[in-house]
């Protein structure tokens, strides 16, 4: 979730460094280090659209809190009815190689289950075009980054950076990101499959400041091979809420926030 809010990133508008002095890693680090408050809240509306135009919808509320470089996240489904109340609690660790801690609350069973923190990263999240890894927070050193060029994208001056995962088990062979120079937010990301073919394209829109933090309002991820796409719209975004780390525990997950 933090990555969702960070992906498009938040910026230091005054921080207009020149790409010639910044490596690919430097640019991605600035994206990751963009301020996003210590705590965050958002409502997300996810629309899953098939190539034939038929749509399905998911609604989620999400809370997140940074603790050092780690992040604790709570997500609760509010729609549709069959998954309403289902919750995910994630303790996301920045340390490479350390698995996240994850719990799933199933309201029908009144039960919380500990789930694997590592295996599902490459699976798609609830049938969307976003993987669990896309939804999580990725250490920048899990990829090798290379600055490619500068060019305009969506009317904005951008740095173009190629990121190649070091772990060959990742589902993509590389991704290319267009990062806005003025706020270090990605406005477009292309994901390439293991054969080097373009697989998915992310477009980020409606970038604005909320409480002084750069925030994206809409993300569209399209699988260009299947023509399936997922549109996530954010609303009611809030930063620096007065919540403590005690909120991110299993008892809260079961009770709902």
């Amino acid at each position: 979730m933090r990555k969702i809010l960070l992906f498009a990133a938040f910026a230091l508008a005054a921080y207009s460094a020149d790409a010639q002095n910044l490596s690919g890693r430097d640019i991605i680090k600035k994206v990751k280090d963009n301020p996003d408050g210590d705590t965050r809240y958002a409502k997300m509306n996810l629309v899953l659209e098939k190539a034939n135009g038929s749509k399905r919808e998911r609604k989620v509320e999400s809370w997140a809190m940074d603790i050092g470089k780690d992040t604790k996240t709570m997500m609760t489904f509010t729609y549709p009815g069959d998954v309403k109340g289902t919750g995910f609690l994630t303790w996301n660790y920045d340390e490479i190689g350390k698995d996240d801690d994850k719990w799933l609350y199933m309201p029908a069973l009144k039960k919380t289950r500990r789930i694997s923190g590592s295996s599902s990263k490459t699976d798609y999240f609830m049938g969307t075009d976003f993987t669990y890894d896309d939804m999580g927070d990725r250490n920048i050193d899990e990829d090798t980054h290379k600055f490619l060029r500068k060019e305009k994208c969506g009317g904005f001056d951008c740095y173009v950076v190629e990121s190649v995962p070091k772990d060959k088990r990742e589902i993509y062979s590389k991704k290319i990101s267009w990062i806005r120079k003025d706020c270090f937010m990605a406005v477009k990301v292309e994901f390439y499959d293991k054969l080097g073919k373009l697989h998915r394209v992310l477009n980020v829109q409606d970038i604005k400041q909320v409480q002084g933090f750069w925030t994206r309002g809409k993300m569209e991820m399209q699988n260009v091979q299947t023509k399936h796409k997922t549109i996530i719209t954010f609303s009611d975004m809030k930063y620096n809420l007065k919540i403590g780390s005690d909120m991110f525990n299993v008892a809260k997950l079961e009770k709902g926030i």
Partner: protein
Amino acid sequence: MRLLSSLFFVLISVAVSAQDDDGDLKVKIKGFADTYHAVRTESPNDWMSSRTRLRGELSVSKNNSELFFSANAVYNSVIPEYSGFNIRELYVSQQAGAFDIRAGRQIITWGVADALRITDLVSPMDYSEFLAQDYDDIRIPENALRVKYAKSSFALEAIAVPVIETFELPFDRKNPWAVSVTGNDSVLSAAKPDFKIKNMEFGGRLSWFLSGVDFSVCALRTFNKMPVFEMNYNSENHKVILNPKHKRMTMAGCDISLPLGKFVLRGEFAEYFGEAQQPNIYSEIVCKNTANALLGIDIYPSNDWNISLQYAHKYIGGYDNSPDISSYRSSGTATVRIAKDLFRSTLNINTFAYIDVTDGGIYDRTSLDYAVNDMLHVMLGFDYFNADKGMFKMYDKNSEIWTKIKLSF
């Protein structure tokens, strides 16, 4: 019954209108309607189940107080006695800092096992259709007081149940899932423990949720909620008369969940002190200490596969001194679950098998669940029984195919 259903709708109306008056009041309504029909695959190919249900859940909360109410309105064609309106959960809760106090009829789940009970002894099971129901329908709520104190990495839970609930077992022969111990028996009316304060159920659970491991310890002063039966022969009607009994016992146990990469290991252990044992005919019920353990593994091989394996073992201590016990000294049950999501989670294929390791029987429920749209699911399934003896023998002719249509809101 009409009064109860009217109360339900009045509560909803009051809650919704109250929301208009006071924006701080939060009202959440959810539920579903489903219709379920199952037919026996063997002769006489009769309908095993045919029922339609409306489930409503209402949560009304303000600040740190909450009222929760869930109820079923059911029409059952095969067993009309099961038709009607019934309350599942109805409780109030109050949160104060790290404390959460919940009082009323509620489902309490303990442990980490999946569909097997080692430490999860509080809410009993409804076997009116054996295990051929959704597992969440099988749990019976209890009138209980639960106090929970939860911090970031641990939770302490204390419960007290003034009057316990016991397993719901069908004995009416009109019900294809009727329980029979000997194959030729009749049952005296089920007797709960006396409604006395000394028969209260109480206990606690202390859980830790840490990076890389969860574990709990728990203890419960309870009863064997699944009855054992005193058995005597009635020469007048030539039947064995079963007299169900519940005896006091104490459980002390622990559980652990340990994620290891793509696997999650789960374990539970509990010692039951003074657990009543099923006697042979004409024999007295004896109580023994039993050791109960479960080991499970969840496998997440990615691509939306989900595999779960469990094995539970029971060992009766002091067995040699009690020739009147009809149960085995050691017995084992295993479960296997394999599930796969397809077509972007619109189709779920799931199979869940209970295996009676001791006697070699099996009960497997395989289903296809297709999401027509956000609200509507259509399910098709097959329940397969095969046993020459043991716990599944009485349902050996109950294999069935079933369909369910469910609309959630």
